[in-house]
């Protein structure tokens, strides 16, 4: 088997299986789904975030933060026990979905994602970008159409945003070459997801770092 930056579908599935095993150990919520028609599959995870918008002061306040905001800061104190006054804030729950698929043409994993309100209204790319970590924003905004685009999910056939895989090999190779000198069992998916995830608001808990390079 070629120990290279590129790998085939079977290796992809193996990496995913290891990744999901750790996810299950820590309750991180990743699952494997298979396509009905073939043995192709993908990893997916869903999480919910409360997006807090303060109606009164709209200009530049914490309207779009990554972390859940404590409810106490958003709502005014109720007048009495049973009556809630008009709050100055509305809290919207956003559902984020992340799917990790394998790209045959690029021979690398690809991150598909989408976000929607609970009533099904999808979030626009602009809103998702606002959830992107500051450090990636400048770069993304320089050439957004090169990096995130909307495409049809290869298995579900629904529109998703995709982090384009054309550069994946380029930024994974130096890291893998280096880490594989020490440990040949580095999990590509864990490494890769730890890198690309924050760009779209997905953060892997630190415990994956231990699992990323199993010495045993």
């Amino acid at each position, binding site marked *: 088997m070629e120990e290279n930056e590129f790998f085939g579908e079977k290796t992809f599935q193996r990496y995913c299986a290891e990744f999901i095993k750790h996810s299950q150990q820590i309750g991180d919520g990743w699952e494997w789904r298979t396509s009905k028609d073939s043995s192709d599959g993908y990893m997916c995870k869903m999480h919910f975030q409360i997006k807090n918008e303060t109606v009164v002061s709209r200009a530049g306040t914490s309207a779009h933060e990554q972390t859940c905001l404590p409810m106490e800061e958003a709502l005014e104190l109720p007048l009495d026990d049973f009556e809630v006054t008009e709050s100055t804030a509305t809290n919207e729950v956003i559902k984020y979905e992340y799917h990790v698929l394998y790209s045959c043409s690029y021979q690398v994993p690809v991150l598909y994602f989408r976000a929607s309100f609970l009533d099904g209204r999808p979030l626009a790319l602009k809103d998702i970008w606002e959830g992107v970590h500051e450090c990636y924003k400048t770069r993304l905004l320089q050439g957004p159409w*090169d*990096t995130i685009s909307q495409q049809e999910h290869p298995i579900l056939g629904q529109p998703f945003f995709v982090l384009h895989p054309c550069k994946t090999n380029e930024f994974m190779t130096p890291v893998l070459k280096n880490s594989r000198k020490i440990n040949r069992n580095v*999990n590509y998916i864990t490494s890769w997801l730890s890198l690309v995830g924050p760009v779209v608001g997905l953060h892997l808990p630190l415990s994956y770092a231990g699992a990323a390079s199993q010495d045993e």
Partner: protein
Amino acid sequence: MAEEPESALQLSPSTAADGEGPTEVSPETATPEPPSSAAVSPGTEEPAGDTKKKIDILLKAVGDTPIMKTKKWAVERTRTIQGLIDFIKKFLKLVASEQLFIYVNQSFAPSPDQEVGTLYECFGSDGKLVLHYCKSQAWG
């Protein structure tokens, strides 16, 4: 050794022996100089011996990323990965379109808002945290 203390960015070279003889610099780049202007207001200069507040970090370059002249740094525990990335980028004079990634265990990139103190607790050994850094023209 007159290594200019980076008090402005609240990082200071570790006073531990950093006796690497000749300067190691990648042939493609000029010797990186520390940033001359302080973008951040100066913090208190803490002696590196104050191990409660600062931890020792050893930075190692990956691939053809330029190697930093100073590799060992005493860093405040609350400094985030993002803060460290910004610092290294300035130190190496990377342009805005170049990304810099930091790894623990050589293979895992912590979230940008992760604090180095936490990473030290989880992955530090021999009194220091080893972090690998790699530059890339990622994202198209």
